[in-house]
């Protein structure tokens, strides 16, 4: 039986968006419900963060959960139009196979800013997938954009799970990307130990948005990461292993962000590029102490200056590099550090094959200091002829059967 609109909004109580900003889902639902018709609901699976896999995995492997969440959200706001929006080619077949004919499927070219909710509004209006200035925010104009994991969690709530786990992607540390279900109370330390047996000197948290973090004894949650001065974001963590230099990782991340700028806002075009250039110089051993002072000043002035959060991510990254790793940064001043000039890969690559199922990170095992299980790798080299991945046990037992029942 389908719950009523107000029952669905109640179901969403306490859920926070999983696209990155962590906005309360119930607030968005209630806000769009009050907006004038026509109203549109969008399942946003355009995962711009290079180190995140979860949205692609959900669309490829658990499309029924996303579509059920989309159906519930559409009921809640009495939507005139339902859309699934993403770029992943491999997800297209699985979505088309299960989506009702009333659901529109929009596939765009992949880009960091294409998943920004104002970019989606622009696409719905026939424009390019580039951000618009806010306000107004889309949910104030009758467009409800919810991340596909947010929708999957709503569906799991409707199926009776009070606290569905989060999905987290871990990359780096010389390991292939791993995808994890994170249950409440799980620490970042337990999560990184499930990714790699090697020592971890820190992480780049929240995709490219949360900056560096060396405190691993924090709960993997919005509040836990925020209390540590970081951000959960989309739940992607780039691990810094023993061979990873924070300067090199920051340089690669800033280079990526500068390259992904929509080139719409002067402050971002110039500002993000300037941060990237200085950290690149630091990596190359050609930066001076004065350059670092300028970097700190520029980074402090950049947040909030663009239509989207890209310059904010760049600023947080640069600032956290300076504040979290000051000694490492000083060692990179002229003549620099030889070790960190190796290439850095930020991508949770999975272009040709569906990722393996999520492995449950059992908080009870890890919190009692038992040796961590080796993480199951999302093998990017798996070919399409390989056997299909087995379904994830937890999702099957607790969510999918429940949703269909």
């Amino acid at each position, binding site marked *: 039986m389908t719950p009523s609109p107000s029952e669905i909004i109640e179901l969403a109580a306490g859920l926070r968006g999983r696209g990155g900003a962590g906005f309360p889902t119930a607030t968005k639902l209630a806000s769009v419900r009050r907006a004038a018709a026509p109203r549109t609901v969008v399942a946003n699976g355009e995962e711009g963060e290079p180190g995140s896999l979860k949205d692609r995995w959900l669309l490829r492997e658990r499309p029924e959960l996303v579509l059920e969440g989309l159906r519930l959200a559409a009921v809640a706001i009495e939507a005139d139009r339902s859309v699934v929006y993403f770029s992943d080619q491999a997800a297209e077949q699985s979505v088309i196979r299960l989506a009702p004919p009333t659901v529109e499927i929009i596939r765009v070219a992949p880009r960091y800013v294409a998943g920004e909710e104002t970019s989606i509004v622009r696409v719905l209006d026939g424009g390019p997938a580039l951000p618009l*200035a806010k306000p107004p925010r889309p949910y104030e104009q009758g467009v409800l954009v919810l991340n596909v994991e947010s929708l999957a969690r709503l569906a799991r709530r409707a199926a009776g799970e009070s606290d569905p786990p989060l999905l987290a992607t871990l990359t780096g540390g010389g390991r292939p990307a791993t995808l994890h279900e994170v249950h409440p109370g799980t620490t970042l330390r337990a999560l990184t130990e499930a990714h790699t047996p090697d020592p971890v000197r820190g992480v780049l948290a929240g995709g490219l948005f949360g900056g560096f973090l060396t405190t691993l004894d924090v709960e993997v949650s919005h509040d836990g990461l925020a209390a540590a001065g970081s951000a959960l974001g989309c739940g992607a963590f780039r691990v810094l292993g023993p061979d990873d230099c924070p300067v090199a990782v920051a340089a690669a991340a800033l280079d990526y962000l500068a390259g992904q700028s929509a080139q*719409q806002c*002067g*402050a971002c075009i110039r*500002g993000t590029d300037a941060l990237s250039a200085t950290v690149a110089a630091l990596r190359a051993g050609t930066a001076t102490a004065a350059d670092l002072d300028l970097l700190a000043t520029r980074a402090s*002035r950049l947040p909030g*200056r663009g*239509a989207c959060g890209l310059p904010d991510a760049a600023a947080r990254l640069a600032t956290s590099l300076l504040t979290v790793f000051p000694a490492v940064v000083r060692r990179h001043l002229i003549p620099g550090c030889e070790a960190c000039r190796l290439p850095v890969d930020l991508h949770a690559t999975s272009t040709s094959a569906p990722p393996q199922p999520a492995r449950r990170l059992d908080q009870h095992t890890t919190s009692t200091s038992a040796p961590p299980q080796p993480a199951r790798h999302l093998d990017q080299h798996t070919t399409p002829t390989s056997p299909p991945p087995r379904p994830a046990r937890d999702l099957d037992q607790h969510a999918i059967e429940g949703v269909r029942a």
Partner: protein
Amino acid sequence: MKLLLDSTRCQGYGLCHEKAPELVDLDEWGYAAITRPPSSPEDDRAARAAIEACPAQALRS
């Protein structure tokens, strides 16, 4: 009143800063940055002048 900047429209003319130096700063490349919201009748007048002066229509209330 509010003073809102559409940073996708700002072309760095800098006239907003001429009209409302207390409310709008320019960065090292000349792009506008709102420093604080208007908070007095005098601020409101300056904000309106800045909005009217922008050739790119990047400011609004």
